[in-house]
Each structure stands twice: as C-alpha cells, then as structure tokens.
C-alpha cells in the first residue's frame, strides 16, 4: 500500500514536522467536535499560560527576609519593649507621679516612692509585669516627663519564671541601651515626619 510513495523512506527528514502539525490539527478538530470549550484545554493553551505565571515568578526577585540576619523595617512608633529614660546629664527622669500606674489598663505597673537624700521624690520600686503588659502605650502618653517609653525592640523573651518582672534597674538599663534610637525617633516624631 504505497499510497504516498513520494514520502517512502523519509523517516529522518523534515516530513515529521508536517506529521506533527497534522497531529495537532487533528487533535484540535477532535476537541472542537467533542465540545467547544475544551479547545483551550486540549491544546494545553490555558495550562501553558498558567505555567508561564509560575516560571516568571521563579525568575523574579524573592520576598523572603532571612530573619536572624535581616529584619523588617520597624516604625519609630512601634510599641515594643518598655524602658525608663534618663536626662542627658544622667539624672533619671521619673518623678514617681504614678500616673502610669493609674492609667495602666492591665495593672502591670507597680510603683513605690520615697524622698531621696536631696529631697526630690523618686521611685524606690518600679516593676512592670511583662505578662500583664499589653503594650498599649498609655503609660508613655500619660508620663509628664517622657520617662517611661516603649522602644521599637520586639525580639525579647524570658527563659525563667520571674524574669517577666522588669525591675527599675533593668528598665533603666534598657533605656540606656536604646537611648540613641529613642531620642532620634522622638525628635523626628516631634517634627512630624516620624
């Protein structure tokens, strides 16, 4: 049966391309006959469109932040770990007015006060229970001397029971560590671009 003898023994030549094209056309025709909406599916056009979406995503920049080395930018108004500030001359700001204790909705702050040797009123105890604290920032708003503040520091943890109570020493220490950032942030916020 040599009904197309001109093609005899042409396996290996470009005739295969015509065969493949004919195959595609026949597939499409079959698809049209079965059901019109299948054309996109059977010619795999829609699938290839979908494949291109993922491939172009794979070639585009990644959104991953490699956490311990990289951090997301933190707003200067972020309400994180609490701290007590000092004046630039080293004097602690807190005057023991207890406004923060009064305003704290979670009752996380405990303050005891006594007069110091020079007659000024100072706190003898300033404890914040970090388990109770809800980082609402009302203490910072109520403070008349900008003493208690919320730092942008968010990566803190406690390993032992009891360490959740931040004492006055610790709060002042946190304030010393973050003072540069705090001062800068507050200056910017004051200017209105923070």
């Amino acid at each position, binding site marked *: 049966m040599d009904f197309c003898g001109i093609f005899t*023994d042409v396996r*290996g030549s470009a005739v*295969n391309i015509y065969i493949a094209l004919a195959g595609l056309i026949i597939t499409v025709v*079959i698809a049209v006959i079965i059901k019109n909406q299948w054309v996109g599916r059977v010619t795999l056009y829609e699938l290839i469109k979908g*494949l291109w979406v*993922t491939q172009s995503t794979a070639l*585009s920049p*990644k959104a991953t932040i490699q956490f311990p080395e990289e951090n997301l930018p933190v707003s200067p108004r972020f309400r994180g770990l609490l701290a007590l500030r000092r004046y630039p001359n080293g004097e602690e700001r807190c005057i023991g007015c207890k406004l923060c204790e009064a305003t704290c909705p979670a009752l996380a702050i405990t303050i005891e006060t006594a007069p110091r040797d020079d007659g000024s009123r100072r706190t003898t105890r300033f404890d914040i229970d970090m388990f109770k604290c809800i980082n609402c920032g009302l203490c910072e708003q109520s403070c008349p001397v900008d003493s208690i503040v919320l730092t942008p520091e968010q990566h803190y943890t406690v390993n032992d029971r009891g360490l959740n109570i931040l004492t006055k020493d610790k709060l002042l220490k946190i304030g010393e560590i973050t003072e540069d950032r705090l001062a800068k942030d507050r200056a910017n916020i004051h200017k209105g671009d923070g």
Partner: protein
Amino acid sequence: MQQLIYWLIHIACILGIVLVMVLYLILAERKIMGYMQARIGPNRVGPLGLLQTVADGIKFLHKEMIYPERADLFLFILAPMISLICAFVVWSVVPFADGWVLADVDAGALLVLALTSLGSYGLLLGGWASNSQYAFFGAIRSMAQVISYEIAMGFSLVPVLMLSGSMNLSTIVVAQSGNLLTWNFLPLFPVFIVYLIASVAETNRAPFDITEGESEIVAGYQVEYSGFIFAMFFIAEYANMIFVSTLASLFFLGGWLSPFQGIPMLDTLFSWVPSIFWLLVKVILFLYLFIWVRATFPRYRYDKLMMIGWKICIPVSLIWIFVVSLLMLGGVL
C-alpha cells in the same frame, strides 16, 4: 562468580545513583517550588541547604514508628516495602547508554508496565492495613486513578512499540536515532502529552494527587505512617518520579542519543560528551516539568480527573494508534 560480582557492582551503582538523585530531587523540588512562590526555600543546612534532605533522613530514622492498634501489622509494614522494591526493581531494565543495561530483557517495556502497576499495591495495602478511614479512602482513590491511567499510559506506549517494532528499551532508543526530528516525540506528539499526563497521575503527583489530598483526607494512604516506614513511601514516590521521567526520555526523547546527532558541525563538536549525560539532561528536563506542574496547578476534582483519564487521554491515544498505523501502512513512518 565473576559475573555475579559484576552484577552486584552494577546494582550498587544504579541504586546509589537513584538514591542520590532522590535526595537532591526532594531538595530541588522544595527549592524550585519556593522560587515559584517568591520564596527562597531551604538554605540553612550545609552550603546552600545541600544537606537538608540528609538532615531530614536522619530525623526520620530517629523518629518513633507508631503502629495503629487495630492495624494489620504484617501488611502495614509490608506495604511500603512493596512500593520501595518495585520502585527500585524497574531500574534493572533501563538502558543508561548503549549497552549499559543490567538486564537486557526483550519484553522490557512490558516488565516496566507490570512493575509500576505492582508498585501501586503498596499504596492499596498501606491504606487498607492502616485500618483508618482516611487511609482507606486514599487507597480507594489511588486504585481508581491508577487503573484509569494505566490504560491511557499503556495505549500511549503502543505507537512507540509499533514504530520501533520491539519491546526492548535499548532497541526502542536505537530505532529513534537519526537526528532530533526522528525522535518519537514529534510524530507521536499527542501521545507524548498523554503519556506525560498519565505519568503524573501514575506517580500520584499534583495536580493528580487526590490520593494524598491533604485538604480532604489528611494524607491519604500514608496518614498512619511515621518514622522511617513513612520515609520509604516518600523515597518510593520520588524514585518513581525519576523512573517515569527516564522512561519518557527513552520512549519519546531518544534516550541517550545526543540532540546534535545528524547535524553536520555540532555532531563532531559534541562527540566527546558521554551519552549518559544526554539521558541525564532529558531526565532533569522532565523532572523540572513535574515540579513546575506541581507548583502551578491546583488539584483536580475527583470526577474531573476521571473525566480527563477516560474521555480525553484514552480516546486521543486510541485515535493516534490508528493514525500511526495508517501512516506506517502508507510508508510515511
């Protein structure tokens, strides 16, 4: 005796290569999927995360194996072994290059089809022996799917066997030699696509992974498995994936044949490249496609999956058998 040692070394080489490929296929899948989801993927264990899968394997070894109280313990442990053994035995008939084959079986294609079907017994038994509803549903779905797509896969291979006139895998590859255009994928393009779809379904991979279907039946047949016996299923799945890709390149992409064969200048330029390299390139191409497809398409609904299998894949491959036989009668192919 010498022959035996030669066989053992050959087997060890094949197993070693396959296991290393499985190791890095898992990592590659996680990496590529990550990239396609605009993430980076695992990159902490070892340089560039290259030891991630090793660490996972060690974790699997250390984990406690939990056996369900009402499970059929014998079948429960046997099931992953069947999967794993079948996934490895099929490699015995695969020719990696001209003459590089452990068992040069004349009915190699039949053996391959039989063993891949046997491998799904692992899933069936695993789901059944677990004595758990989810696992049972997974096993039922797996069986229905494998039976449906086995037909499509078998039919899609028939034109290949017709063209090469042999069931020996080496002969099938050699019959395609000539140049890039004489590879089977061009004259058998629709069948090639059907084979790809069927092979994705055969290995229970997304978008045909209704067997696992974690949103409906948790993890399907493997829900009760833990520790290393779960890892056996895992390794079997990935070894199967590599095997199906290898088969696709043998049947349709000319196996170890160089893509530059028959092109005057390039042929001599690339003649120093070992032919196993070309096979590896083609296999990696298919594996990338597998991962790419998994990252792209959502899981098919059960009835849609059956519809694709019975109403599209099987008719297309059946029609193409007739077309190919007509073309062969006419002397075109």
